[in-house]
């Protein structure tokens, strides 16, 4: 449509030729990548199901059973005879486990996170300490909560305490790592400014780093409480207390309606916590308005 060829010089034309080649190559590469990615994924699933697969018979039977389970989830029978007190106590115990575990983890993870932070531990000896602590964090969070639960059952016996310890250990690892990352991500300048003022090490970290990483700290803790509420149910399956026990009992007894009920209650609970933490975040992370010092009055005083 637009003909400019007569105004284009030869060198420009050869440049353009190269550019065309690059464009076509890039489009070909895009096609090749798309197709090969698709094929790789397809083959992965084919192999996965081929090696682990079910016979069609098992498949149909299983789907049939699943259908029954789901159907039973929606037909609630004998609701008046359900031991609601027991259910809600167990939910409360789960919440107790979550709060106790996460708060305790926060208490330990915060000081440890400074020891793990590259920013704070900036000499050679300190840096090696921080590496050790980070590895420790990796181990703590690398093992699932339920496994920690089983291990703590050996140490402190069955019951919610093992659950608290499990959350405590896993969250110390997880929060410690995340806190340390947020300390490392803060702006450097305030710290420098403070050392120019003659602040000592601890003051520097308190005001230079923690003031800035505090919103992150709060957000991470709130998020972790919420996420633990959801995952703490697995603790009960291994005997570490809480609502998981109710799940396990009722699934064995085919009380799918109770399973549904408990899950709905948990959904509601998590939603409420989500709203609450949103409010908190708004208030403390985005920051409230502090009324400006009243300027007109200042003028009248003059």
């Amino acid at each position, binding site marked *: 449509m637009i003909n400019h060829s007569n105004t284009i010089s030869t060198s420009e034309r050869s440049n353009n030729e190269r*550019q065309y080649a*690059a*464009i076509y190559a*890039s489009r070909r590469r895009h096609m090749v990548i798309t197709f090969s990615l698709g094929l790789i994924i397809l083959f992965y699933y084919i192999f996965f199901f081929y090696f682990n697969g079910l016979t069609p018979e098992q498949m149909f039977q299983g789907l049939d059973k699943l259908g029954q389970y789901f159907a039973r989830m929606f037909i609630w029978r004998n609701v008046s005879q359900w031991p609601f007190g027991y259910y809600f106590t167990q939910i409360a115990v789960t919440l107790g486990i979550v709060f106790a575990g996460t708060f305790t983890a926060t208490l330990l993870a915060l000081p440890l996170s400074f020891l793990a932070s590259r920013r704070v531990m900036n000499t050679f000896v300190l840096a090696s300490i921080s590496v050790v602590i980070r590895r420790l964090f990796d181990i703590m969070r690398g093992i699932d909560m339920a496994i920690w639960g089983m291990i703590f059952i050996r140490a402190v016996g069955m019951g919610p305490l093992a659950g608290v310890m499990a959350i405590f250990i896993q969250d110390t690892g997880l929060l410690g790592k995340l806190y340390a990352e947020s300390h490392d991500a803060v702006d450097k300048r305030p710290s420098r400014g403070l050392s120019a003022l003659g602040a000592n090490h601890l003051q520097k970290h308190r005001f230079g780093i923690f003031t800035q990483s505090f919103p992150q700290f709060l957000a991470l803790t709130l998020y972790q409480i919420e996420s633990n509420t959801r995952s703490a149910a697995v603790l009960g399956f291994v005997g570490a207390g809480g609502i998981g026990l109710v799940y396990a009992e009722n699934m064995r007894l085919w009380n799918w309606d109770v399973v549904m009920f408990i899950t709905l209650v948990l959904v509601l609970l998590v939603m409420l916590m989500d709203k609450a933490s949103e409010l908190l975040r708004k208030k403390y992370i985005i920051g409230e308005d502090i009324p400006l010092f009243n300027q007109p009055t200042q003028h009248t005083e003059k």
Partner: protein
Amino acid sequence: MQPEKLLSIVNLDKSYGNHHPVIKKLSMDLYAGELVAIIGRSGAGKSTLLHMINGTISTTAGDIIAFPDSDTPQKTHLLKGKALRHWRSQCGMIFQDFCLVPRLDVITNVLLGRLSDTGTLRSLFKFFPKKDVERAIELLEWTGLINHALQRAENLSGGQSQRVAIARALMQTPRILLADEPVASLDPKNTHRVMEALQEISAQNIAVMVNLHSIEQVKQYCSRVVGIASGEIIYNGSPDGLTEDIQQRIYANPAS
């Protein structure tokens, strides 16, 4: 030969919600091959007019008729779904803030102009037909951006982005091109390039309608100018006829 009439706007009204009207009884025509400038104070309703033609803002009353002299005139403000999308593909739109897709490379951004004519499966996987790629290359060469073809759109300057947006609009092979303040954030050199490009496009028998804020640019590039004040046409004619007095009335304070 009389140039083809592409669009005719008849007694168009627009008010947002219950507020006072933004466009009042506006009537005008648009012919193939002209470059029409729309001028007016901020808030006069220029953007609103362009968006109503494109169909991204609904009208309150009146008609917008596409291809009124053809066998199949269309009231574009009544179109819905596929027909509306088809109309939009014939009526290119360029935004002041470009509205490119930042993470995609420039040539793909240009190719997006063909979306309405590309099969769903093809376009889902970004497999555009070869002739479209060729045309995109041609357009990029024309806009002088061939060297940036494989860069991400987020890395372009304002003038470059605007030229990509123009290439994308041309990729649709539109009959009408609407440009909402395409040069408002550009330096003089880029302004010149973009306005020149729009001029060239109008020479391809396409009607170009452009919102401008500078009388100089109107006089330098445009073949016709429409002055709007408080939603009404004050002036509609050659840029040469834009006297001081008329300018006064177009840019006058509506409150006074």
